[in-house]
């Protein structure tokens, strides 16, 4: 069965500093990987996704992520954090489910706090 681990439960960075959120996955086939962001009391917004091809993927809001098969990782990065980036970030892997369906398996999330 697939699984996702986000080792950092909380991260605090200063506004303008760079950011890297870690994600490790376990999946027996080619992974389909996603990063979502959740603001307090809100649903999930898709930041970026990796299906195949270039291992460095660009997303919205200036985020990027790099897929490293040898490390089973899909870390999220941003060169300069803004106060509005404070939120919870979830990494997820897509996998088949049941009758030709698909499902997302999420990590536990990383809460990002931004210091002024």
């Amino acid at each position: 069965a697939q699984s996702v681990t986000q080792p950092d439960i909380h991260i605090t960075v200063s506004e303008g500093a760079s950011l890297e959120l870690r994600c490790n996955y376990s999946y027996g086939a080619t992974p389909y990987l996603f990063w979502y962001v959740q603001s307090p009391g809100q649903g999930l917004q898709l930041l970026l996704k990796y299906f195949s091809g270039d291992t460095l993927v660009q997303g919205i809001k200036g985020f990027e992520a790099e897929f490293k098969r040898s490390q089973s990782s899909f870390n999220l990065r941003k060169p300069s954090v803004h106060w509005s980036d404070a939120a919870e970030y979830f990494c997820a892997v897509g996998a088949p489910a049941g009758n030709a369906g698909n499902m997302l398996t999420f990590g536990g999330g990383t809460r990002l706090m931004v210091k002024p």
Partner: protein
Amino acid sequence: DAGVTQSPTHLIKTRGQHVTLRCSPISGHKSVSWYQQVLGQGPQFIFQYYEKEERGRGNFPDRFSARQFPNYSSELNVNALLLGDSALYLCASSIGTSGLLWDTQYFGPGTRLTVL
């Protein structure tokens, strides 16, 4: 275009009661998935429906059921509520026309269910 909509926004029930949550997908999307997010955790997959058929089911008891209507909207039903059912219930929609596998899922704002 409207995103995924869910109703109600908040709901308070007592143990043993029944609840129905509703979801309308993005226009043109034919697949709906349901996830449960307990406070402090990542979302967990409950169901996926496509063209009114169940296509995937997560590890949830039979107290949880769902259905999809001809207009692609969906209901999630939970019987005999337990305190542990308190959570944010998220609905996600995906296009589905190119096959369900690896469709990107777009999430609604969720319904916050509190069981007393």
